[in-house]
């Protein structure tokens, strides 16, 4: 078997090379000031719009905050109250199911579809990318989908009837409402375009070399495509976890959390609490959600290896 080569020598040569110790970079005083001048705007932005609201919300959650009048420190009352609130437990359960389904259906599938599309002729691929790039208004698409899901005259029921399947209640079905809320995301292909762009960045010589070696289609995907996509997958998965756990927009407009509480997410519940003047309770829920997202993200980032060559 011929030895695989990489630019700069064989893999064995690179592995055996002595690591070069980098000399510590010393900046002049002037350069250090300049460095800080560049950093300060971004740091201020992050402090004002990122960390300050977080700290402020944390402080607010220990008070009986109100719009006007004196605010009192009430200790952990809001935490105790929200911990025992059955509707919050239900909202977290719904949110986790929604996030899991959303990640499987709108995150994993696009990776596979993007890889398979790369095998298509260039012309077909360009058309598909063009279709996915067409800008769609978020509000317009929710209104459109509301009509498409109508159990009486909606397009989706028409398709179901055409296929001879049992009629669906779509958004009125508490067992399937989350699936139907996620379904448009599958069709819209989600992050598939980003994967396709990343796949196009993989040198074709890798695949050619693999073909010379007699690698099968699946072997190429497993040993070349997926490892090279790892950094992109890592970033997109982080966004997907955070985004799906913070879902608000689609269920709020499409179902208002129903039927019953079957599609009410944590952020929707938090928003309702705020509207009911329960500012302390609302920020407490936000802190719960922040802690959970933080823990999940840290665990995931700890165990996921981004390096394609790892």
């Amino acid at each position, binding site marked *: 078997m011929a030895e695989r080569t990489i630019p700069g020598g064989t893999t064995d040569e690179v592995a055996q090379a002595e690591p070069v110790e980098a000399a510590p970079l010393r900046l002049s005083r002037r350069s250090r000031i300049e460095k800080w001048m560049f950093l300060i705007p971004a740091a201020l932005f992050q402090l004002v719009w990122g960390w300050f609201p977080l700290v402020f919300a944390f402080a607010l959650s220990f008070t009986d905050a109100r*719009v006007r009048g004196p605010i009192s420190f009430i200790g952990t009352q809001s935490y105790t109250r*929200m911990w025992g*609130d059955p*509707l919050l437990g239900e909202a977290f359960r719904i949110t986790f199911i929604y996030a899991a389904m959303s990640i499987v259906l709108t995150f994993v599938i696009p990776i596979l579809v993007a890889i398979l599309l790369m095998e298509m002729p260039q012309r077909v691929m360009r058309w598909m990318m063009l279709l996915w790039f067409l800008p769609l208004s978020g509000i317009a698409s929710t209104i459109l989908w509301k009509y498409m*899901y109508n159990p009486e005259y909606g397009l989706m029921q028409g398709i179901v009837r055409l296929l001879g399947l049992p009629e669906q209640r779509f958004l009125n*079905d508490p067992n399937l409402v989350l699936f139907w809320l996620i379904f448009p995301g599958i069709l819209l292909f989600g992050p598939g375009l980003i994967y396709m762009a990343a796949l196009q960045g993989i040198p074709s010589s890798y695949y050619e070399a693999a073909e010379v070696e007699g690698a099968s289609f699946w072997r190429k995907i497993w040993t070349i495509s997926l490892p090279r996509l790892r950094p992109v997958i890592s970033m997109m998965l982080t966004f997907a976890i955070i985004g799906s756990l913070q879902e608000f927009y689609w269920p709020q407009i499409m179902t208002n959390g129903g039927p019953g509480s079957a599609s009410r997410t944590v952020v929707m519940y938090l928003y309702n609490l*705020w509207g009911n*003047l329960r500012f302390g309770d609302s920020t407490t829920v936000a802190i719960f959600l922040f802690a959970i997202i933080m823990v999940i993200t840290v665990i995931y980032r700890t165990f996921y290896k981004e390096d394609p060559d790892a």
Partner: protein
Amino acid sequence: MNKQHLMSRRQFLKTTLTASAALLPATSVLAGSASAPARVQSEITIITSGWPLTPMPTAEEIEADKARAGYAEALQSWMDENPGVTFQQVEVNIWDQQAIVTAISGGTAPTYVFPTSIGGWSNAGARNAFIQGLMADVGPAVEKFGLIAKLTPGALAGWQPINQIEDGYMSYPIDSGMNVYYFRRDLLAELGIEEPPMDWTWDDLMNLAKALTSEADGRQGLGALVWVAGSTINDNGFDLLSNVPTPQNGWNWSKDTSDPRWGELLTAYRKLVFEDKAVYSDISYTSENLVNAFANGAIGMYQENVLGAFGSAAQEGSIAALAQRLNKPYEEVVGFRGMPRGANGYLSNPIYVGGVAIGPDTNAETLDKALSAVDYMFLGAGWDIQKAGQYAATQDLKAVFNYPLPIDGKYTYEGVPGAFEDAWGQRTKDDILYYAGLPKAPDEALYMPLEQNPGPDGQAFEDAWSTISYVADSVDPVAVLNQAQDTWNSQAAGFSSSVDDAAFIAGAKAYYEALDAFWKDASPEFYESTFKPWYDSKVLPALG
């Protein structure tokens, strides 16, 4: 590429800093000079979401809706008297509790807000929101514009007790409304079905819904949003009878849904929805869907506020447009009934006097001008100017008489030939006045001490109505109600009231005594069969 044209990182930084330093004084001067004349031209800005007043309509807007000419004329006459005031429109949904509370807490609320939406659609909630500072006190304007003398005794009685809180006033009244069920009178005539009696019940309503349903014509009898499920039992006294005072608890109220009749009524409604298929209902529908469905004949009946139902035929989707399309008089096409009476004799009169409140960040001068404009446009000379202008522009009495329950009692306007009944028919007016005149039960908000602390909201029961309305699978309404009750009571255990027990008990005793007297007189049937046994067994023992 010529390297001289590239800027190093250091050069870029230097240039940016130098340019910023140089521009700073210049921009300050420019900003100052730009804002100086603006202050002269417009010292007060009234921010509106489009209700109850809009900024001056443009020529294009007037061209599109000629009735706006009258509004423009009236507003211009007020602005001539009040130079330096401008109206600015912003996009805030003041009818959505979450949206408007978020705007108020963020300091971005418009000048005009709606008190009841801030309070979660209850008078008690609105009053609590007022004392928590979510609305400004409009008391100075009440006195300055001589409001009390302008209202009819009925409107004053409907507005003042709710809106006068401690030493202030929560809102400034502009109109009066109530929800009723509109039905297609022409279809009943075609089908040879008798109209329901004026004091109809939920059985009458369900029979009418079934009668108006026709698969061949693509029509369902009743258009319903999620809360109609709750109406089926609220019209039998559920709101009153499920709320039990519990002063011994941290939160002074608890829910009790154990009465078996609630399950029976909800089961009957679900049969209407899922077996008879007589209800046009889907989780995604809004009130707009129902309005359009009624106007295009897809439903035969729906619930609507009388304030929204008297638009002229020129308005697309209005009931008048439906009558015009069918080429029949309005009265022949559409009839309405008030809230159905309960099978137990319970009756509800949902009439209210609606007012405009002012955002809490509004300064005194702006508050004064904002309410001066409201007073002029709704209760002053501006109202007649608007109406005369609307008639001159449209020659359409329906475009003019769109307020069926005027709080100043005026059913005719200067410069308009005709009256409300000429536009909509004598029968329509008589029916509205009949329902408006029904007895109205005492409002809890008038007796109970003001609550400073937030408490459990209605989410648990809203979830119950949603399940009952939309879930077609086997649903046991009793189990759904019990779950809502348990959830609510579990939530309530986490709250404490700001009202001390003695004050609560005194207020509650006064409230229930008023209810006792009211029901004895207004509906002896309900009093004997339901209220009295419940009062004796649940309320009196709780209040000691």
